[in-house]
């Protein structure tokens, strides 16, 4: 393999990931990606008084995918739902001191997972938020025909 150069932050989150697992009694769980395409992420969260009280992740994918989801959960924890909705993949990549260009797509998936979990949360409250459904879920790893 050609050695991929990850930032210290990425390596630190990869080797010591935060918030691994599934939240008990989750208010929303978002699963995105597809093992056939290589990567899969699950984000689960618990909301109290409009704030994300707890958030956990599980990821099947590369170091970048793992570090991104770990960092995302750290950023989101304690934020209001509105704040969480406005987090972009760029924010996560910046907090990780950047990602190698070929690995940026892994961070998109993490945000998709979060938004899908929030969509679930709203849906349980009879609020329909189609804008939170990732539009281009299938564009991840678009180079593989089976992922289309």
């Amino acid at each position, binding site marked *: *393999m*050609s050695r*991929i150069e*990850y930032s*210290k932050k990425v*390596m*630190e989150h*990869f*080797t*010591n*990931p935060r918030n*691994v697992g*599934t939240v008990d009694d989750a208010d929303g769980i978002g*699963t995105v990606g597809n*093992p*056939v*395409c*290589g*990567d*899969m*992420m*699950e984000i689960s969260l618990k909301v109290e008084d409009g704030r994300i009280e707890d958030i956990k992740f*599980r*990821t*099947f*994918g*590369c*170091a970048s*995918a*793992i570090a991104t989801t770990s960092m995302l959960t750290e950023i989101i924890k304690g934020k209001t739902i509105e704040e969480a909705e406005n987090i972009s993949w760029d924010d996560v990549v910046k907090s990780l001191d950047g990602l190698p260009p*070929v690995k940026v797509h892994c961070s998109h998936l993490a945000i998709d997972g979060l938004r899908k979990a929030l969509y679930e949360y709203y849906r349980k409250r009879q609020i329909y938020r189609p804008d939170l459904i990732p539009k281009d879920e299938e564009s991840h*790893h678009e*180079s*593989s025909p*089976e992922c289309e």
Partner: protein
Amino acid sequence: MGVLIIDTIEKGVVHLRSVYLDSNSGMPMWPEVISSMLPYMSEHYGNTSSIHAMGNEPKKAMEMARSHVAELIGADPTEVIFTSGATEAVNLALRGSTETASEGKKGIIYSQADHRTVTATAEDLSRKGVRTAMMPLDHLGAIKLKEAVSIMDQGGFHLLSMPFASQEVGTFQPVEDLVKEAAEREVLVHLDLTRSAFQVPIDVKKQGIDLATISSNDLLGPKGVGALYIKKGVRLKPILTGGGHERALRSGSENIPGIYGMGKAASIVKKRMGDYVPQMERVRDALIDGLLRIENTHLNGNMKMRLPNNANVRFDFIEGESILLMLDLNGIQAASGSACSSKTLEPSPTLMAMGLKHEEAHGSIQMTLNPNTTIDDIQYVLEVVPGIVENLREMSPLYNRIGD
């Protein structure tokens, strides 16, 4: 494990141990080879083409190396030419034979068991209008004989290229059968001996091979040198033009230190293979046995019919790049068939051709040994790997699903 890793990152502490299991990517050199090359970088710097005295020593050195390489593979020295490596040898074999093949018979048969050098060259020739066809692989990584024969029967092919053993999973190819079928149909055979030459004896004459590629680094010789065996009577058109070295097949002043080193490495391999290969195989078997003891772990390729230095296993529910990085942090270097660790984000073509699913290729790790790998090395690897696999599985959404 965790402690060691964090230490490494924060303080830049060096590992207690380093175990190199990526010999397919690069081999250490025999120490004697290194010292044998030195005079050809100092006093004997002449050019073999010169008439004067300074050309003599290099010329002698080159011919000595040629006989050593020829002896290793059962060829006549006049049938061996030196190149800048296996890549050039493969290019010369495929392109050079295409040029001399008669019209209507310019075609190459190959497979996904081949190294990227062969597949990329065949693809390029195909874009230029040369006929190409791929032989399918069975689930253990061997070329399917019947299908290969029916491709040959379509006619219009001058060459069949195959590796002695698959590069990635180490599965031996049905060389004898394919050579026989090819000969009956007047199709030349190019045999890629990369990876196998240092660990499996071969006699190209007896086996009826027409062209064979050998890499120097694979013999634990210097990088940047290789050789092509060209059976007497097989005609190739050179791909380089110039001063007409190597019987006009490979122009360019010869890399004498490298060539001499390759010859020396070939002679060492010939002499010691009988000792180090059984030993290496035992160490490799211990590695495979130990890894397969981890649950939901499978061997890729054939258990018995595989290169003695090759172990290729897949761990369910986890991804190769993560595994590689974790191994690396623990001082173990390996390779993976995962899409995430390849530049193109495509999984290994060999594994896919064997019928593995995308996610199976994902969790595949290739570990390749060399004569220096010890049982101690493997014990260390077997201490470390189960923890890595477990940690990553704990993070994987696929694992719990099955566990639930």
